[in-house]
């Protein structure tokens, strides 16, 4: 029996290895790696008589071994959907109605996009006219001065609209009164964890629960070793981590918070988004694509930056870099595949024919090339990275990697454990379990609890927490490689403001109690909540 298991493990390992060797060839830095290894093989350090050992030795000394290990790490991460070594369960339940809802939702967005074009009499896509191209090229670094009339453009949808879509989802196997409004997501059968599970069974958030000293509580906290304070200690260790260049070590390190000065590099290492030569070239290509084509999404992007970052006292100084970032993102076809093949996607892609061209294959493009249609607040997924990187290119790749790992499931009707539906469900369960009085209070005053926190969850708190606190939160997302911390924080905040919430009885006052999060300290709050368990 045991032998059998051993045997089957061996087979599956072999299969993985085969897949890895095949798929690694299509990864972005494969070419670089391959050239580097070829160079090494040709060098005198590698001996013909002892090829394997000498090669391995050289790879190690050269740092290439670490590179390869990191590449495998990123490959594994891209395979195993986020911590979704799921405890079966989901397969037993038929969730096709969620898929259907997503398909409908995608159609609705597309329809709305088309009607925008019709109303304003603009094409979905066209070749950018010369004069316009020159202007965009010239103003590339200060697109805030690119003066076009956007008064007629409206965001296609806002988080509120999306929440309405989620509320209207019906589980066909769940019987209830025909006109009863969906009060919560309890009828959707996605398994989410309990707080105890979050802490114990999955060994999640262990550092938070054990009362380990974390950055983000008090930087002057005494250190266990010979450092003046905790911050000094963390800086010392993170320099060592960065030197080792091992992505998994960096990920582990982030669980206890990154020092400001090294956070950008740590994040890039964990996400494999460190900029290399070919990335610079690709970024330049994206820019050229923006210059070459004029798509209606551009207007929506510019409008969104104007509506969000431009008016935000934390981010307005970064307005110009955000235009570039978001425009390039829309042209990035490397985003398309992971976004559309995920099981949370409906797989509906628009194809646009360039205006005034015959509808041939070469005049048709996936619209937008990234496959992502922005909504009101989409820019907020990128804004926090402005604090980490001065270089727009470095900022772009880390933002993109973060989006592809986490954010894209927050604006689709997804059955994924890390999708918005599961996170809302987790929020409800946690609230119901740990703050039953608050839950009942919400019920009594007819406010769906999710409604209060949905905008936080959908944006990963971006724009709601001050940048520094937000970065500590995102450290934890990366460190534990999970978005579950977001609903957990949402519950914690409600719990923290419980007294005031219990005293009010309408949506407006509830929002007033929760409007200003500027005084919150994320890490101590989470610690408080988890230590109680």
């Amino acid at each position, binding site marked *: 029996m045991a032998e059998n298991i051993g045997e089957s493990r061996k087979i599956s390992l072999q299969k993985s290895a085969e897949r890895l060797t095949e798929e690694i060839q299509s990864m972005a830095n494969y070419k670089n790696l391959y050239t580097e290894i070829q160079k090494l093989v040709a060098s005198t350090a590698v001996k013909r008589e002892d090829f394997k050992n000498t090669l391995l030795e050289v790879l190690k000394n050269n740092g290439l071994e670490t590179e390869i290990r990191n590449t495998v790490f990123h490959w594994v991460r891209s395979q195993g959907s986020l911590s979704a070594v799921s405890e079966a369960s989901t397969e037993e339940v038929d969730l096709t109605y969620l898929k259907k809802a997503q398909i409908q939702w995608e159609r*609705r*967005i597309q329809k*709305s996009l088309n009607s925008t074009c019709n109303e304003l009499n603009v094409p979905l896509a066209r070749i950018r006219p010369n004069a316009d191209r020159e202007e965009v090229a010239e103003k590339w*670094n*200060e697109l*805030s*001065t690119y003066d076009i009339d956007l008064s007629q453009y*409206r*965001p*296609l*949808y*806002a988080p*509120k*609209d999306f929440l309405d879509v989620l509320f209207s989802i019906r589980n066909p196997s769940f019987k209830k009164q025909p006109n009863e409004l969906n009060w919560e997501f309890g009828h959707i059968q996605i398994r989410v964890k309990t707080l105890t599970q979050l802490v114990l069974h999955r060994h999640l958030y262990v550092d938070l629960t054990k009362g380990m000293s974390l950055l983000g509580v008090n930087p002057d906290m005494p250190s266990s070793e010979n450092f003046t304070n905790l911050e000094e200690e963390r*800086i010392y260790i993170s320099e060592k981590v960065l030197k080792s260049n091992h992505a998994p070590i960096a990920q582990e390190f982030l669980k206890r918070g990154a*020092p*400001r*000065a090294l*956070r*950008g590099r740590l994040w890039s290492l964990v996400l494999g988004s460190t900029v290399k030569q070919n990335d610079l070239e690709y970024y330049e290509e994206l820019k050229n694509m923006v210059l070459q084509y004029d798509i209606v999404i551009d207007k929506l992007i510019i409008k969104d930056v104007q*509506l*969000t970052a*431009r*008016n*935000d*006292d*934390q981010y*307005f*100084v*970064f*307005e*110009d*870099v955000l235009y570039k970032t978001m425009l390039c993102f829309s042209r990035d076809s490397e985003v398309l595949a992971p976004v559309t093949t995920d099981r949370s996607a409906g797989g509906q892609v628009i194809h646009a024919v360039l205006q005034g061209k015959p509808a041939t294959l070469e005049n048709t493009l996936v619209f937008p090339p990234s496959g992502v249609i922005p909504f*009101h607040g989409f820019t907020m997924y990128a804004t926090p990275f402005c*604090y*980490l*990187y*001065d270089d727009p290119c470095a900022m772009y790749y880390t933002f993109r990697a973060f989006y592809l790992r986490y954010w894209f499931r927050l604006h689709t009707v997804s059955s994924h454990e890390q999708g918005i539906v599961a996170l809302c469900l987790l929020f409800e369960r946690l609230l119901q379990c740990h703050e039953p009085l608050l839950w009942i209070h919400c019920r009594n005053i007819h406010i769906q609890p999710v409604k209060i926190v949905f905008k936080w969850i959908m944006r990963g708190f971006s724009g709601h927490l*001050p*940048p*520094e606190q937000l*970065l500590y939160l995102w450290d934890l997302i990366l460190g534990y490689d999970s978005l579950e911390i977001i609903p957990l924080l949402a519950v914690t905040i409600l719990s923290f403001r419980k007294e005031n919430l219990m005293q009010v009885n309408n949506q407006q*006052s509830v*929002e*007033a*109690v929760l*409007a*200003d999060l500027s005084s919150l300290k994320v890490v101590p709050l989470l610690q408080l909540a988890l230590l109680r368990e």
Partner: protein
Amino acid sequence: MASSTVAENKRVTNLNVSSHINHSRKVLNIYRVSASGTDKTKVTFCTDVDKSVIVHNFEKRGWVQVGPEDDWNFYWAVTQSCRNIFSVETGYRMDDKQLINHFPNHYELTRKDLLVKNIKRYRKELEREGNPLAERGDGPGKYLYLDFIPVTFVLPADYNMFVEEYRKSPQSTWIMKPCGKSQGAGIFLINKLSKLKKWSREAKNPFNPNLTKESYVISRYIDNPLLIGGKKFDLRLYVLITSFRPLKAYLFKLGFCRFCTVKYDTSIQELDNMYVHLTNVSVQKHGEEYNSKHGGKLSVHNLRLYLESTRGKAVTEKLFANITWCIIHSLKAVAPVMANDRHCFECYGYDIIIDNDLKPWLIEVNASPSLTSTTVNDRILKYKLIDNIISIVVPPDGVPDVKWNKCPPPEALGNFELLLDEELAAQEEKEYSSGKYRSSSSKWK
């Protein structure tokens, strides 16, 4: 499916609601205290600045508003009324229970020409004493540690000295500011001596005799400012002084950066475009690009986060230490000439520009920093500022008293941090060198 942008505004209105709730609750508390306690110590205040951030803060403490002719304990005055009170002709005598928010000759610090004069004198004095702080740097007129204001001359008095300096680097740009004006009024840039000559000819025009009376300062223009998002900014920091001799100074931690609305551009065509060069909100708010939601203001806290993340911890810490340094030495420079009246305290608005090498430059000091709120956050900030100032200058029992030792307990500081208290520092030094230190060290033997 069209969404509204109203959502973005909601935060604004909500904040109003919550701060009002807060406010009324605190008022209630105060009344409760005064009702049960001594009624005769009712504190009175007087102000000729009709700003809600000021009046609310006093009323919150249960203080009663009276006119300037009445018996007031606390006067939040404009500089002119303050000058009247201290003038010999008025003959007003303040008693021990009265405080006022300006020093009689604050202009030693806040007039552009006098500040420069005082700093130059301070450096010379230190040099004469052989103080290592006054060590000379490369080139004439340079100091290694005390070079925190741009090279500046007073015009017309120092015209010849200016020309001499100008000739050393004729390519440089200079900035002209009228000494007695504020908020960016009357400021212009010059890059040619001929332009200055032309200006001076016009100024001496007999038909416009007012202009000749006015003196100007001309300073080397910081033409390599640190830019964020391509835009120039300066820092507005609030510094509270409760005494000049001994010096007691506090820095408000919630300072902010004020950004220009237009990209920085040193080209000659833009030399006259003040939206590029001047960060004053009073200037910028007339610009087309001015945004009334954030008013071009970024918190110093966020600036620090950005700098530490993108430039590193050591250089950022050095920058902020240098900022503190330049504040303290500007204060030490004026301390000997200040009339250190014990009824007075003052909150100064420091304007500092950081250059691209992360060196801070003191540009000027304002005696009456604007209490006008341009945004919601601004109002919250200024409300806290006034609140914290009052708790520092008023003794713990809540009644103004000049006999108090002006050592507020740590919890009274709020968002202020102590920059320097010469009295405390001297005490500590004494303790350090005398018995206490020795006895504590002997314990270890």
